[in-house]
């Protein structure tokens, strides 16, 4: 597309949607039909959920396109980091126009980045939830959730790229106030899974405790402690967390 169009689109906000529609010819829209390569069942479930929210007669809903754009943006971040992830590079990776991205994500790049945080958090929570469901005891559930969270975060190439090359962009999510709001989210999501075995207050404390432990060892690895090793996680949980859970269960 020519620069004229691109400039026009950057000014687009809610009141000028008509203009966007005019700018994007249909064939450019269909250029956004990129196969979504999710690597695990949780993400697929997420995609199904997303599709159900917005049933459309067309082959690909705009929710579908949004997810494809998010995957494309993640690939760009893996390659070039956050600062190198321009709207152009995301559009290029996605095989669609900047205009299409602006229509899918009013607000542009920032909106896409926020959407990435939401979808990746949802994927992480979904992975943790699936790991906790088959657990038969509270210690199994805690170990499984730490192991699964560690595997997800360590294997998350975009996250690892940012932690390595542009920590200033990502660390605010894992420290001080940013970490507190992440912990709040983790509690409200994970607590119910533990309430099968322990009371609400204990469950909250245990979730916070496990999340702190996980993030600490992931951001600043210690010799001999690899949270993507099941035996290590089980040992840590049994050594440091379970005695405390026993105290709490006995005292409430």
């Amino acid at each position, binding site marked *: 597309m020519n620069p004229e169009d691109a400039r026009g689109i950057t000014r687009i906000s809610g009141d000028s949607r008509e203009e966007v529609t005019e700018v994007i010819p249909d064939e450019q829209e269909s250029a956004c039909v990129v196969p979504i390569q999710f690597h695990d069942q949780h993400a697929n479930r997420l995609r199904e959920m997303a599709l159900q929210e917005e049933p459309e007669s067309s082959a690909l809903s705009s929710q579908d396109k949004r997810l494809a754009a998010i995957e494309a943006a993640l690939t760009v971040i893996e390659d070039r980091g956050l600062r190198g992830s321009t709207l152009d590079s995301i559009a290029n990776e996605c095989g669609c126009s900047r205009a299409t991205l602006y229509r899918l994500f009013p607000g542009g790049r920032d909106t896409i980045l926020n959407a990435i945080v939401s979808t990746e958090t949802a994927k992480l929570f979904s992975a943790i939830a699936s790991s906790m469901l088959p657990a038969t005891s509270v210690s199994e559930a805690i170990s499984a959730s730490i192991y699964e969270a560690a595997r997800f975060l360590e294997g998350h190439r975009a996250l690892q790229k940012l932690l390595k090359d542009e*920590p*200033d*962009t990502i*660390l*605010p999510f894992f*420290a*001080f*106030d*940013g*970490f*507190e709001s992440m*912990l*709040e989210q983790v509690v409200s999501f994970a607590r119910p899974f533990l309430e099968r075995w322990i009371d609400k207050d204990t469950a909250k*404390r245990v979730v*916070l*405790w496990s999340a*702190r*432990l996980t*993030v*600490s*060892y992931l*951001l*600043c690895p*210690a010799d*001999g*402690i690899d949270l993507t090793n099941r035996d290590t996680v089980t040992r840590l949980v049994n*050594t*440091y*967390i*379970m*005695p*405390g859970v*026993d*105290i*709490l269960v006995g005292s409430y």
Partner: protein
Amino acid sequence: MDFWGSESVINNHSTSSTHRADQINQRILEAAFNCVVRWGVAKTTMEDVARECSISRATIYRYFPGGREELVQSVIAWQAGQFLADLYEVLHGAQSLQDILERLIFFSSDYLRNLEVLDRLLATEPDAVIPKLTTEINLMASTVSGFLVPYLREFGVNSQVNIHEAADYLARMLFSFISSPGDLDLQDRAKVSDLVRVELLSGIAY
């Protein structure tokens, strides 16, 4: 004073040059800290620091070859060092592991609460501050971990516990709870006591 001028001063007094260099280093750090308190990290320039301490930019660059980045990191390290020195004073004479950790949490959270500049920087320029703080916190955690080892030996730990791993675990959890307490009130002695008993020491020394 220009670069060459200050150089000759140091050369002419070589016997006390180390002491003098320390003093200059200290003056620069204090000036940089004052500038950051006043203007924040992003708006503090080397020129501001030079004016604040009346030391030339060239000299400041000689002490901090990495420039602004290195200077800011050094200011944080210097403040962290001060904090640790005060902390050791507070821990002196503690009677048990429970006592040590309670004092540590209480003192640290009180210190952070009164460090207005930190609140302001975290609110206004988290991107500039948090990575540098995180680097420093990781260093402090390993210092604190090393500091705890002799106490764990002295007061004793459960038989299956590795002392070094336990000290490392404690330091991590301490820094996590202190820097992001959430809805936990770390000035509430009963809550802190409970936290130390359950989340920190239950697996290590009970």
